[in-house]
């Protein structure tokens, strides 16, 4: 089956001014650096990594919410980076995004009906019984009562607001939905409802998700495949089971080892903790040469400091960029 979305050498550099007032220099912040990625129709690709690794930037790049510095994006047979504004707008019908912060993502002065209907109006529908009917169906799908339509965002809790955001994203019947940390701002007892809702909607509407999150448990639950990002690069990508059972990149191993235990009897202290990494993520203004993880890697070798590892096979449908793997 042809991929729904394919990204080739996708790169985003931001120009930033650094240095003091008198010695200002421009440096490129490498937010996303040469990412190759495919998303198959109907799957959920999980995208994990620490803050500042570029996962949100990548999500926005893929649907051209921000322009790429370099690289190509093939979505549904179209080259997104070459589209003119009008063609891009038409293509956007097929790809939508759900944001992390349900408080900031909704216009406080628009009623729920206006918010959910707006994408339809932007894409040429006339306000009328048909669009109102579409809003009714959508509200029902995301589990909001029809009476919600005349109310405003501040009247809703975080979980309900996220339902409004999902309704707005899905009203155009998109193929691909970028879910950018859709549950991390919610209370834990509400997160499961939204995760279940997203799963149900995927099954019902045949959606494809890119699910960006830092919570490895949630990503494991919802994803088909998982990609791990570190400092602007995808360092490992694999089927969910393979990735969680046999993480190949030392960074993935460290991430998984850092997840808190699920029962107090599994506690490990001191030397019993394996694959622990120290220090913080380096700055994307001056990423380390060679493998970007080498400054924190417990298995660092001389070659890691000079040569950047390419993606290598680490199993069936499992790739990682690490010199430890056989070339």
């Amino acid at each position, binding site marked *: 089956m042809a991929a729904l979305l394919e990204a080739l050498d996708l790169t985003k550099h931001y120009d930033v001014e650094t240095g003091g007032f008198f010695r200002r220099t421009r440096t490129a912040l490498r937010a996303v650096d040469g990412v190759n990625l495919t998303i198959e129709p109907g799957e959920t690709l999980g995208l994990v990594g620490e803050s500042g690794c570029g996962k949100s930037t990548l999500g926005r790049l893929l649907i051209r919410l921000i322009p790429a510095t370099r690289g190509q994006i093939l979505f549904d047979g179209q080259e997104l980076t070459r589209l003119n504004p009008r063609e891009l707008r038409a293509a956007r019908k097929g790809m939508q995004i759900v944001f992390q912060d349900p408080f900031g993502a909704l216009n406080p002065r628009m009623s729920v009906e206006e918010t959910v209907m707006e994408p339809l109006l932007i894409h040429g529908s006339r306000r009328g019984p048909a669009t109102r009917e579409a809003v009714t169906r959508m509200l029902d799908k995301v589990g909001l009562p029809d009476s919600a339509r005349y109310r405003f965002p501040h009247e809703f*809790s975080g979980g309900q607001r996220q339902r409004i955001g999902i309704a707005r994203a899905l009203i155009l019947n998109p193929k691909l939905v970028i879910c950018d940390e859709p549950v991390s701002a919610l209370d834990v*007892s509400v997160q*499961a409802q939204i995760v279940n809702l997203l799963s149900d909607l995927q099954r019902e509407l045949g959606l494809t998700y890119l699910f960006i999150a830092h919570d490895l448990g949630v990503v494991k639950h919802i994803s088909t495949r998982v990609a791990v990002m570190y400092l602007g690069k995808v360092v490992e990508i694999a089927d969910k089971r393979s990735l969680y059972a046999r993480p190949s990149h030392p960074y993935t191993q460290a991430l998984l080892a850092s997840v808190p235990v699920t*029962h107090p009897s*599994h506690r490990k202290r001191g030397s019993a903790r394996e694959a*622990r990494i120290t220090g913080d993520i380096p700055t994307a203004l001056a990423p380390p040469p060679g493998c970007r993880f080498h400054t924190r890697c417990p298995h660092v070798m001389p070659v890691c400091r000079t040569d950047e590892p390419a993606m290598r096979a680490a199993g069936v449908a499992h790739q990682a960029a690490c010199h430890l793997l056989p070339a």
Partner: protein
Amino acid sequence: MTLLEVSDLTTSFQTGGGEVTAVENVSFSLEKGQILGIVGESGSGKSVTALAIMGLLPRPPARIRGGRIHFEGHDLLRLPDRSMQRLRGPGIAMVFQEPMTSLNPVFTIGEQIMETIRAHESVSQKACFARAVEMLEKVGIPSATARMTDYPHQLSGGQRQRVMLAIALVCRPRLLIADEPTTALDVTIQAQILELLMDLRDEFGMAIIMITHNMGVIAETADRVLVMYAGRTVEQAKVDRLFDHPLHPYTRGLLSCVPTLDQDQDRLIAIPGNLPEPSRRPSGCRFSARCPHAVQACSDAIPPLELYERDHAAACFRVRDLP
């Protein structure tokens, strides 16, 4: 001897819409060197409880309506401001969730640590500096001496939280209150900070109140756990006991609704509904509106916290009927 004893603490806030109760009848105690986990979501009253112990609730609008807080025999609610101030630091210290807003952006981190030392002890400038550097090293800041002259914005989030810890710990408190100390941090940094807290507890024998919404953090650190919902204690137990045999439907829900790495589920077991706003809490059991086991009795009266096993209490009318 018990280090901290909180009994029947009830606090409320004066708001435009009348007086709203934040915490109701919360009781717990803590021994030296023990880690008490307080679990709860937004509006559960866990942070208000912490601020009440610290004497940092702004009064008004906050009001302590009842209860007592005893720390090493002192009645904290009756303590004059001056004595409370002397106690904060060497007695009780606190770290907050947001390390950026809790540090002063216009002072170097060295000045902020030394200010804390000088507020409680008369030491020479040189000794003070050395103490601060030593503390920064202890919390895992590399090249600590050079870092002393850094401003908070020059540090990463994980390092700022370490600096907050250094400030809290520099006077060797007997009790540390950590209010969501790792919530804003990435998992790799969270793991480092939690391990650091455990090491410091072992080294100094300080007690910790670990406030979190994350059951994983509880599983990693706590000796005993208090589960709060909408301002009330719903369950209290030793940590193993709580994870093995949770009694209250809310605790059970919390434990099962979070997907974990060691199990596969087709569907998450979600807790239905939303958290009640403090001004619109249901009558009777606060959880009754979302509880799959609720019966009429649950909305008629508030279930009292009852002991079901040794050291294991829950506030639910239906504990004995639950599967």
